[in-house]
């Protein structure tokens, strides 16, 4: 079988010191003079079990920080021909718009030099300060000329629901450059992690994130984002998969009941999601082969799922990236065809 396209892989983003060479003088001086560091996201504490699979840890290094380890543990081992790097950085969740922009911009230049230039199998997402959509759009325009950037990356929980027109400059930039928007697990923590308040456990925060993905799809649909940008592709990264059928059933039922509130939503939400939304397969969140088979039947769309290891996050054991129970033909689509359909820029370079 041809080598797979891994749509969610995480190179470890270094501390601020390593990013300073990619910042302007003002921010270099600010970070140094103010003694600022430690911008790793609460959504992925560096030593939490989910952040790095135990047998993928490299002593003395941050999770995913070693290109050598990524090559041997993921790219070679899992027969990955192309992998899309999704850096998770504190720049994406900063309260200061300009500080967030400076970190994101540094990460984009750093990843180009330290990963994309070093390993031809790698591609990357453009990390943007979604806190400041106009700055985000500028960053997209700055990076998009390098066609190794194949996507725009945003965390799933931001300052506002993602359908709001506040964010439309980002979606306009996505359309301008024919780039999908990748929405990844991770939160700015501007609101309580659940509508019932702040849970006691990191595990709860993590599990509850699949609900935010649901909320954001409803927001994008209801606010008419797909009316304004019909070609926009949204990729849900590390969202879980098994919630999707139940979500669609309820979304369609609610739409039938109160669609007069949003008359521009003139197609079923299920139809819109199947056309415009894609999901990566790790984690899948189903216990066994039978459940995976039923969930895939219920999703009822061969082109929605994208292969992803979520390396080095701990989602599966051994080499079992692909959930069990998928027919051969669908596996090929998930591994190769669907990513190529989703990311137009991959077609330029993947044989």
């Amino acid at each position, binding site marked *: 079988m041809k080598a797979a396209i891994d749509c969610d892989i995480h190179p470890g983003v270094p501390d601020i010191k390593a990013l300073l060479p990619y910042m302007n003088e003002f921010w270099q001086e600010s970070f140094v003079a103010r003694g600022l560091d430690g911008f790793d996201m609460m959504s992925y504490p560096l030593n939490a079990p989910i952040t790095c699979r135990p047998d993928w840890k490299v002593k003395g290094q941050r999770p995913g920080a070693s290109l050598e380890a990524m090559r041997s543990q993921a790219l070679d081992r899992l027969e990955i021909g192309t992998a899309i790097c999704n850096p998770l950085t504190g720049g994406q969740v900063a309260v200061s718009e300009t500080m967030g922009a400076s970190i994101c911009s540094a990460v984009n230049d750093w990843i180009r030099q330290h990963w994309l230039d070093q390993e031809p199998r790698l591609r990357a997402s453009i990390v943007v300060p979604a806190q400041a959509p106009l700055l985000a759009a500028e960053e997209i325009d700055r990076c998009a000329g390098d066609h190794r950037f194949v996507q725009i990356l945003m965390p799933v929980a931001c300052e506002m629901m993602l359908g709001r027109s506040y964010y439309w400059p980002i979606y306009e930039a996505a359309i301008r450059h024919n780039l999908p928007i990748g929405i990844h697990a991770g939160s700015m923590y501007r609101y309580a992690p*659940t509508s019932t308040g702040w849970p006691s456990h990191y595990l709860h925060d993590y599990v509850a994130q699949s*609900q935010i993905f649901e909320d954001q799809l409803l927001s994008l649909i209801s606010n008419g984002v797909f009316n304004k940008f019909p070609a926009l592709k949204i990729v849900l990264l590390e969202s879980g998969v*098994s919630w999707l*059928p139940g979500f669609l059933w309820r979304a369609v039922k609610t739409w039938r009941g109160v669609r007069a509130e949003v008359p521009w939503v003139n197609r079923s939400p299920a139809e819109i999601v199947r056309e415009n939304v894609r999901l990566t397969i790790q984690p899948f969140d189903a216990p066994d082969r039978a459940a995976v088979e039923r969930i895939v039947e219920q999703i009822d769309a061969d082109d929605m799922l994208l292969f992803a290891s979520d390396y080095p996050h701990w989602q599966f054991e051994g080499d079992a990236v692909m959930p069990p129970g998928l027919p051969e033909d669908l596996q090929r689509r998930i591994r190769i065809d669907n990513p190529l359909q989703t990311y137009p820029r991959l077609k330029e370079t993947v044989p």
Partner: protein
Amino acid sequence: MNAPVEGLSHAADSTLGLIDCDIHPYPKPGAFNPYLPERWRKHLAEYGKFNCGPYADRGTYPRFQPNLSRRDAWPSNGGLPGSDIGFLREQLLDRYNIAYGVLEPLLGANTSRNLDEAAALCSAMNDWQVHDFVDPEPRLRASILVPQDDPQASIKEIEKRAGDWRFAQIQLGSKTTEPLGRRRYWPILAAAQANNLSIGLHVGGTQNSAPSAGGWPQFYIEDHHVLVHSMQNQVASLILEGVFDAFPDLKVVMIEGGFAWVPQLAWRLDAHWAKMRDEAPLKRKPSEYMKTNLWFATQPVEEPEHPDDLRQVFEWIGWDRMVFSSDYPHWDFDDPHLAFRFQMTETEKRMLFRDNALSVYTFR
């Protein structure tokens, strides 16, 4: 597979006395006043209910139907839907042969930021339910409303009502100031177990936190859906905090949240707990508590394109966990004859429409 099979049907039959876990009573004008002390009558007249949210006298998200109700549920006497006992009998209890119905007042009794106001309103609405509904119609049973952010006042109210057959459960909203598994609520959970009262967790409650961790949706069509996630988070919180290890006989019924999300939540909790169980050291894996301590009321029934997918969801959750609810008189009422579009055996029907509820509630 979809062909009709003899002995199977998809509807409650007319001879089976049903149990409806979700009926919403509404007041006649001034109905609470006899049960409110003068101090709180005056306070409410001047300040109104002091809820979280932008409006003084309504919820944040403008709804889609007057009083959220079916157009045909307005009584001819001009009162609110769900306020006229005669019409409620005719349109619901007699028509569907309902043996018992649990009242779920959604009148903001316990959402005030002023805890004394909440305590007064809960107590008044508890009296109102029994005098206006249960006494004239004993097929109906009341919910004990409690001001949950004041555990002492809540326990006082629970103890006052616990021996009264007219109350079937303690009702809490799915949106609380903190997740329900947090320690501040344990005295209430302990009192529920001690008095053999189940907790009915009905969607709604305070708007102390944003409806989504991503912020405030713009539309009701979003909020109505997003609300269900508060149910999932209460389930996760109760389990992960060890509530059911501490109170193994506690029964919780999830009401008006639908149920297609249940298997996925169980799987996702199990999958990630397997890696992070040291953070939440439970005696059993998360999904197992869902099979012993939790029940799920069906309304609003999800409507998959293939009705058999719904049967699959019942099987994943377990038939013994499912109880029927109609949500009368609200607009998304589930008719027991029409809501389930797949085939059920006689045994399954008896479990869903009656027997499971009898294992939760004690009807005396």
